[in-house]
């Protein structure tokens, strides 16, 4: 079977546009069968693949400023696909696909050792501490394209892989060899009312993400575009989610390089 060129799906999130409204979080929950409990205020027990962080510049009134930062799985490539979480999983429940650049998580394989959670500096990996329960017929709105997780396994954002699978199905049905950019968009990208999220193939120069991020593949995928940054760039995780902000303090908070300057 012939192969298309390897893809590298990634995201650019424009923090100047993001209003922190939370649509991405709920779109993700609805798409991906994320469970809910009566009390979800303990965010350390809560499962939300997409989480919107509120960043503050630490200055007093009236110079205070805030910025929202949506954080899906960063789908780190690390070096040659050895992202922080992938290489630590003892049971090969998580993997990096060089054909798509997506870090997969297989719930049926995971036995819940949580080593990957310890490995991930972005806290994208979440454990099912509780049995998921859908009260009173609410299981009717579950999406059959995404497997429902059971208690005791780790889950995380998959870049809505089911949408990729279905986009390919449609393409095959229509006799196309490959999918178009708009055929595969994640739920959060689609829902974002501010159009702050752009999703596509970073390897494809025709895709918007590529044009926005202009990743320097020879330099670990670092963005060449102005005002773009990746979270914790220095760790060498080589993530595929790029952020854009015109505010310097936000860009500085994306990595720890200011921490040193401040402390020094």
């Amino acid at each position: 079977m012939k192969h298309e060129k390897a893809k590298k799906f990634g995201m650019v999130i424009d923090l100047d546009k993001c209003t922190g409204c939370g649509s991405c979080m709920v779109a993700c929950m609805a798409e991906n069968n994320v469970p809910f409990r009566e009390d979800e205020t303990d965010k350390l027990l809560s499962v939300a693949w997409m989480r919107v962080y509120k960043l503050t510049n630490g200055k007093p009134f009236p110079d205070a400023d805030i910025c929202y930062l949506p954080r899906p799985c960063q789908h780190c490539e690390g070096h040659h696909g050895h992202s922080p979480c992938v290489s630590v999983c003892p049971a090969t429940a998580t993997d990096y696909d060089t054909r798509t650049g997506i870090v997969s998580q297989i719930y049926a394989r995971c036995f819940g050792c949580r080593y990957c959670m310890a490995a991930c500096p972005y806290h994208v990996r979440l454990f099912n501490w509780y049995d998921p329960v859908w009260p009173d017929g609410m299981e009717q709105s579950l999406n059959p394209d995404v497997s429902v997780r059971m208690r005791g396994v780790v889950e995380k954002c998959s870049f809505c892989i089911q949408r990729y699978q279905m986009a390919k199905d449609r393409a095959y049905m229509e006799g196309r060899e490959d999918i178009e950019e708009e055929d595969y968009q994640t739920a959060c990208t689609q829902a974002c009312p501010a159009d702050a999220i752009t999703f596509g193939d970073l390897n494809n120069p025709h895709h918007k993400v590529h044009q926005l991020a202009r990743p320097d593949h020879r330099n670990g995928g670092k963005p060449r575009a102005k005002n773009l940054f990746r979270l914790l760039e220095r760790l060498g995780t080589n993530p595929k989610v790029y952020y854009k902000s015109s505010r310097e303090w936000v860009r500085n908070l994306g990595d720890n390089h200011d921490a040193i300057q401040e402390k020094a």
Partner: protein
Amino acid sequence: MKIDRRSFLSFTIGGAAGTALSPLPWKLTDDMAIWTQMWPWTPVPEKGEVTYVKSACTLCPGGCGISVRKVDDRIVKIEGLKGHPVNDGSLCILGLAGAQLLYGPRRVKAPMKKINGKFREVSWEQALDEISKTLADLRSKGEPHTVACIADSDRGTVPELLNRFLRVYGSRNFIRTPSIQDSYELTLNLMQGVRAMAGFDVNNADYVLSFGSGILDGWGSPVHMFKAHSLWREHGGKLIQIEPRLSSTAAKSDSWIPINPGTEGTLALGIAHVMIKESLYDNDFIDNYSTGFHEWKRHIIDGYNPEIVGKVTGVAPSTIVGLASSFARARKPLAVCGRGKGLTPGSLKEFMAVHTLNAMVGNIGKEGGIWAVPEPEYIEWPELEMDQTASIGTQQHRADGAGSSLYPQARYLLNRLPETMNASSTYKLIQVLFVAGANPVYSMPGSADIKEAFEKIPLVVSFSSYMDETAQMADLILPNHTFLERYEDVPAAAGYNRPVINLARPVVEPRFNTMHTGDVIIRLARALGGTIAKALPWESYEACLEEMMGDRWDTLVEEGYWTNTDFAAPQWSEAFETASGKFEFVNKEISSLARYSPVKPEGDEAAYPLILIPFDTMRLWNGYIGDPQFVIKSVPDTVLKKNDVLVEVNPATAKSIGLRDGAYAVLSTPKGKARVKVHFYEGVMPGLVALPRGLGHSAYENNLAGKGINFNELVGPFDDAATGHDAAWGIRAKLAKA
């Protein structure tokens, strides 16, 4: 043969060896693991055919089009409708969680009657019978005007049916729940002489001056506003946010101007002052298409110089001058008004002050400006034929006092109703109350008074699909289908500058024994007979709707929405329907209203040294719909922790009271007391306490009920002197260690 211990041991070892060589242990181990992958108590959603149905979201006035993804007969997800003029494929957090409202446990599953304080299921016949008897009874007693209805809108076929039913029955008491729509309607009416909704051409504006409007917190049509904001970011448009708290809108703005709460109108007039002084206004518009400017100008020049305004508002005079200059010099400036999500009508004069800024830059009806969007004209019903009872009934005063000599301008004054009702203990002002698509017991300020008033009404009928606070207080619940199970027209999108009609349609069969409110009204009319039956002659609501839509019906069914793409605001020469035919800065009616002055918060400053203000966010809904599970889940732990709400306090203020971050405190106002937690926030002005709206429900699921405090329990309405609308934006408060 003697079996000794060793033989037995040997047998066991042989057995173990044999077992190890058989599939038994290995297959069992594997199957056990597979069992954990498909635990019987973990649901497995059924696969099926995927279809998308175009429909409309009715959960807020935003008017978004939705595309509902179905798998066979289940709704799996709600997404934005691509190509829809308002939301083009995107959707807000609440709309996305809409399926939870359909399938969630908050539904009322059948008509209910309260007997001895408990709801019992009754049949539709019985319920309708009971109501029609009561209604017939009242009519025979000549008291038809004691029937009232509260609805969330007065546009669209269902509200119009309710209104028509009420009128032909003999009552004027159709009451719309308050919002900034009230104030904007009056502003446009008084200054431009039109009866219209305010629409904002935000997509084309390049300098937006927002007087506390939560443009990115749910004001207007939320998704549309978000999209506009992103356009500004792309094209260099500016957003200036004036409000005392660093809201999401303020954070995304190019410039956040903290202001003493309640003085936004003063600042608007201060800006006007500078514009006048520096002649920074559109001469063509002022000279040729407006009247009263000079009279109005004198008043502004005298009272609102930057120094005075600076003192009142806390905004530096130089900033005021800067704002005036950049606003006036922008290519397409736009000033907007109405705090937060726009749920409080506010002070009319404040709206007018802001509107004059728009007039001075001549952006009325222009690209990037403020438009008067005419009311939808598709509902054309024959003149009512009223019988005598009805005629007499409709000559009575409205129960809420709207349109009375005291408040001649107001059309609806729901906020005044409790006071009026509670004042007299014997006189039955309202004997039957219908509530449709509204939850006033929760969402109106002064919850305690509202409850008291509701208790006095002999028959409260709720049409709610959900067991909300108002439904809990009702005597009868006639549950409507949810928006995913029914037809309904959504004739407008809040703050959108073009006419648009969306069509909600039954995406799935009704899950429960519910009935369309439109059908209920038609059936009630039929039961009452006479002129009433004649006024609502349709077979069913659906027939009525289809008839009203006429040629639009096919488009609506096909596309899910209808819009007039050719719509353009009229030229200035034809735009104004005032006596002068021009934009009127001052006229007789305007002059007769009380003069602008900042609304003071209720309470004694000495006893209550702080000021409590509410804030709105997209993640907390405080109108008819309370947060579904996904939405409340998205609320950050800096707002809600377990069942405690966190109030935002400036660290300096908190420390002066001796409160630490995260500490418990007692928040008290003249209206009530609540236990809260303190959250340090540098983005809130010292001296203020900010409390989110949308929490403190006593109804709905445990995901929402009992969590936090309802802001409305801590404030009361404060009547705007000009209109009688609620103009309260906060209340005096005290924060003390718990």
